[in-house]
């Protein structure tokens, strides 16, 4: 957790991995359970290096998510900037939490992200209004410990 650990290469590679995971074609049973990898990745970096990763990164990541999802520009940017603000505001406490408690917060944060995106989508076009997308928030929370462990190892190896 020392500042010298930071490298933009690691940031780039982890986000690349997250983007690929976001797009991989899953079987129909698993598709509604796809974790929000990009959000997880962003929250990871916000916790580890809040002095480098902030609102600007969130906007760029949001732009990429808009492009990958084929949604209107600004949709994911708006959602990600909101959760970036939230995570940065409680970052001091959040990084001290045990992993399970962090996962609970990640559930809330991903839920807020998804709700923002779906609210914008519902105002702009037709959606069926079901809350099924919240399963994605749950699976993101379940994957959080995995993300922490794997990314920490990965960043350490790249150092």
């Amino acid at each position, binding site marked *: 957790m020392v500042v010298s650990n930071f490298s933009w290469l690691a940031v780039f590679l982890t986000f690349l991995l997250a983007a690929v995971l976001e797009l*991989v074609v899953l079987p129909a049973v698993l598709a509604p359970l796809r974790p929000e990898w990009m959000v997880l990745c962003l929250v990871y970096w916000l916790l580890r290096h809040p002095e480098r990763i902030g609102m600007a990164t969130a906007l760029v990541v949001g732009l990429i998510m808009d492009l990958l999802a*084929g949604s209107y520009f600004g949709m994911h*940017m708006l959602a990600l900037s909101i959760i970036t603000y939230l995570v940065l505001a409680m970052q001091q406490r959040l990084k001290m939490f045990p992993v399970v408690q962090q996962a609970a917060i990640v559930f809330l944060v991903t839920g807020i992200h998804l709700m923002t995106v779906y609210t914008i989508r519902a105002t702009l076009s037709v*959606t069926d209004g079901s809350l099924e997308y919240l399963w994605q928030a749950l699976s993101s929370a379940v994957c959080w410990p995995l993300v922490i462990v794997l990314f920490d190892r990965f960043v350490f190896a790249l150092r």
Partner: protein
Amino acid sequence: MGYRLLLAIVLSLALLFIDVRFSQLNSARQILNTALSPVQWLSDLPNQLYRGVTFLFTSRQSLEEEIDLMRARLLVLERKSQKLASVTAELNRLRELLNASRILEEGVVVTELIGASPDPDHQYITIDKGRADQVYLGQAVLDAEGLMGQVIEVNEFNSRVLLVSDSRHAVPVKINRNGVRAIAYGVGSVNFLELGNVPDTTDIEVGDLLVSSGLGGRFPKGYPVARVSTIEHDPGQPFARVRAVPLAQLNRSELLLLVFKESEQPDQPTSGGEQP
């Protein structure tokens, strides 16, 4: 920190507004998407690897069986198409007698699915042909069974196809049996489409085949779209509630066909009305 959030929100709302209202950002989107195509390619890699590995472990015998099966199928299809050329010619002669315009032959190009929407509410797929292969906006995409959707975004090496089942999509169709016209709306489920504004007295039955009517000039005429599955008549409603099951395997097909209209310039988007 708070003013940064405010700035970010204002920026994204402005972008959202511009993107929804105007089309100036479309060229930027194309360029950025082309830059992101390595990610698309990488995300297809696990599937390709899986296919490669399963191919490695396929026995010679099952491959031979598959070839035999395909030969048999080819024979059946060839027999069906033998008469097609003469029937088309005859149909065109008859239409000339009626002073109707000729039916144009359509060319097809095989394309492969490389990605699907990460979001279950958004029904689109990505295919591996783009502007480099003269794909154009609004082009119809088929699979072996029926109409899949239309191209909504063309990038350099890949393009995005909106499926007929997306809630923003509608296809003009007609009933193959009697030619009654209707419009099939997507509702966001791959399992059924809904026919809009069908009067209670319309001659429509469960099992009727719906084919694209070609009205509106977007889709070519005569491709099967869906089969009527349920019809509900509610005396309190002005219209019947008709549901139809799409014939294309919207969430399973991997090999797709892009339809090229032969009369048109390939790089020009289709617009209705210039044909006589």
